[in-house]
């Protein structure tokens, strides 16, 4: 077991060029948002002595006064933030095409990455669209009856505790279903690299998933769990660091970027584990 994990880890680490590429794209989009945010904040409170107060830690009044005075700041940042996320999701189809084909072939070169990303982009796009539709259908099957049947939730459930646990249960159920579809879509994409035929690949992907369901499922759930742990660790340890000195700002940025890199590495580890 441990040998297997170490083996997959080293395979994932060998994909460092692909990891850096995906990280680079995320960094560019993140930087765009950061620059927009900096400009907005600077324009609003950039010459105020309140910044000294903010340097020692979060101060709610500074932010709420800023938002009261310049409500457009938040709208502006929100819309750019959403735009960048959508942009990354589009790009990620292409990025996945390169990454998955490199993992499947056992290539590590960035040249192959782009070459295969080009080759498989449209086929992968179709898989993504099919899996997206499936995900939406599954979510609808889980949630639409809930919202239709529930009526006044507190009349139906009598206590909010039941309601809360029902919702948590349905969220977990949704996640478990989405993981199955996600695994299927990844395995299908691997088969596309092998067979280059969409429907056949999806069938093979499904057969493979079913034949070794427990193992794949553990990888899928483990991946989600690792992401949750990483986020929890980040918010617990890093997110609240102050800005007393330039060193602490720099340390914060470095730690943030390390967390971003780790997240992508974990994902590549997951893809490698599914491939193995």
């Amino acid at each position, binding site marked *: 077991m441990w040998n297997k994990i170490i083996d997959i880890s080293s395979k994932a680490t060998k994909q460092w060029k692909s990891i850096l590429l995906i990280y680079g794209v*995320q960094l560019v989009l*993140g930087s765009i*948002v*950061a620059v927009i*945010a*900096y400009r907005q*904040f*600077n324009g609003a409170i*950039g*010459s*105020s*002595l*309140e*910044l000294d107060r*903010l*340097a020692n830690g*979060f*101060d*709610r*009044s*500074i932010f*709420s*006064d*800023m938002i009261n*005075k310049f409500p457009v700041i938040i709208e502006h*940042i929100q819309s750019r*933030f959403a735009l*960048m*996320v959508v942009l*990354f*999701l589009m790009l*990620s*189809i292409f990025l*996945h095409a390169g990454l998955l084909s490199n993992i499947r072939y056992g290539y590590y070169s960035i040249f192959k990455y782009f070459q295969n990303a080009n080759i498989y982009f449209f086929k992968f796009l179709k898989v*993504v669209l099919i899996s997206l539709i499936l*995900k939406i259908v599954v979510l609808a099957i889980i949630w639409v009856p809930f919202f239709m049947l529930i009526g006044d939730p*507190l*009349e139906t459930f*009598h*206590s*909010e*505790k039941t309601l*809360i646990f029902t919702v948590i249960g349905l969220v977990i159920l949704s996640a478990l279903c*989405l993981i199955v579809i*996600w695994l299927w879509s990844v395995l299908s994409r691997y088969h596309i690299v092998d067979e280059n035929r969409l429907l056949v690949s999806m069938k093979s992907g499904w057969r493979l998933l079913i034949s070794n369901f427990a193992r794949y499922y553990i990888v899928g759930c483990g991946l989600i769990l690792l*992401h949750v742990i990483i986020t929890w660790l*980040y918010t617990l340890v890093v997110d*609240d*660091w*102050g*800005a007393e000195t330039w060193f*602490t*700002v720099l340390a*914060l*940025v470095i730690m*943030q970027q390390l*967390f*971003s890199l780790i997240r*992508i590495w974990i*994902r590549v580890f997951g893809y490698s584990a599914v491939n193995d």
Partner: protein
Amino acid sequence: MVEKWLRNSLLVFMTIMVVNTCVFTQCNTSYNQSQSLKIANYDIEVHLDHKGKSASCIQKLNWKNTSPDTLRELRFYMYMNAFKDLKSTYLKNTRKMFGQDLKNRTKKEWGHIEVTQAVDRNGNDLVQNQEYIQPNDGNALDETVLSIPLEMPLLPGEVIELDMNFDVKLPRTIVRSGYGPRDFFLFVHWFPQVCVYELKVDGNWGWNSHQFMPGTEFFSDFGDYNVEIYASDHLVIGGSGCKTFSGKVLGTIGEQLVRFQAHDLIDFGWVAYPEYETYTSTYGDTDIEILMVPEHYAFADRYLKAIEQSLEYLEKHVGKYPYPKITVVDPPTHTLNSGFMEYPMMITGATAYGIPRSVRSVESLVIHEFTHMYFMASLASNEKEEAWLDEGFVTYFEDRILDHYYGNQSSLFDVLGARSGNAQQSRNEYVSMENPNLGKIARPGWEFDGGFKSLIYAKTATAFKTMERIIGSDIMDEIIKTYFERYKFTHPKEADLRKIIKEVLEKNTSNFDSDKYLNQVLHATSSINFKMVDINNSTKTIEAIREGNFEIGTEVLIMFKDGSSKTVNWEGSEKHFKHTFSSSKEVISAHIDPEQKIYLDLNLNNNSITLDPNKKPLYKYAAKLGHWLQAVSQWTSFMM
């Protein structure tokens, strides 16, 4: 006297006769039982019909005429009639309340109250001539104030005793009063309660008998209460006052009697719900009873701690808790609209399963409602006409208590690096108003058309905080302590508070002009926003302006490049501040009100300009946003 003896003997006899198993919960005996004038005293016997959501009651009223006038009528609040239909003044402009559509209510879901008998000492039944009156708006369909003409005039100093019968039917809870699913009952504003015969500002005495108007709560006289509740024994019952007796009624199937006694209250409320679990504790001389719904049991210690903190803080900064007990009621979530409220010696909280400890909504609410035991139950100002007098002080102390125990940057919540202090929240509720000059604070609740909470609670609390920062917290505490000691168990008005403020300021030789300040806070619509406009080192000038018509003096701290500084006074009457500095030194920053004393300032960020800004936090928060984008992108790409 004989009658009183007879009545008491009868009560004892009844108790022995009707009850076989019983529990006594007695309040502390050291409690002083004659703190008020005891004008309005009530003995009420309640027979609850839990299936019919109603009660038939026998009420013995003992009311003293403390005025110099001879009275020919008594006036009663009949506030349950506000929930009779959508024609009452309280509801006539309302179709939705607490998210409920009231239009489609069935007859069963409405409430009402009716006096069926009121017999005086001479045996005259006065109900024949009773009539509903509408002193506020003349709405003939409003039956929330009842006038009962007297057969015999009531002379100054005389006491009238009435033997009354009344029936009360609860509505399905609209706001506080009412019934909920699974036999939940909250009885508040539920009995015919005598209005206040008071000395008016024009020097004449008269009835203060407002209909149940929107935006209004309590105004009634102090007195003693003996309340006996006969109800099905599946219900757990709690209420204002001390529970002196609780047990099964002999010869009945499943009936219980619960008896309450309370002194010097302005009102009495009670609650019944089968699922309540009772937690009891004591803090100093105060008994604490907490009624929790089972799914919220984990919050019992949070409720308890909040009560203990409030007691500790208020006894130190205001005065001794004036009652022997407090009952805290946790409303079930299905009837959450019965929560968030204060009654004398009883408060209703609100919580929901799973609220983390770092979100102190529960604490902030309990501390707020408990503080009302000082500002409302004891300092019983007219909440209909001068709601700011209690809600303002209560919110101010809610801010102080929360910030004292949990830190002024994080007392309200501290989640994932986002924090807020309670006073910060109160201030923001005021300064973020679309129009902070919407209206003045000092006016009756029903005259508000929006902004009630932001002005009455938040602005008043922020104004008290500002005053505290200007005059110092020791003097502020002295004002409040003196105000409490002198006016507890009475109906203080704004003028009484002002008198105390001036007296204490004078004693401490403070030159703070409290009249000018309070006039602007309470009786004007002005706001204040200091703004640093320019530092010019070539013309050697610093310029600032004050937006808004609120006149208040402050100071400007000027920092020079060599590290030295200078403080310049800015007179309150000046809207424009221009300072020319003669020194050869270069100015690096200028800061209006550097200690943030004027907490009412609408924007604290623009009070200063620095030529050498500290950009580090801007980089930090920009980097954080950038990083969260990276994280969100990575999570959501799972979908791809």
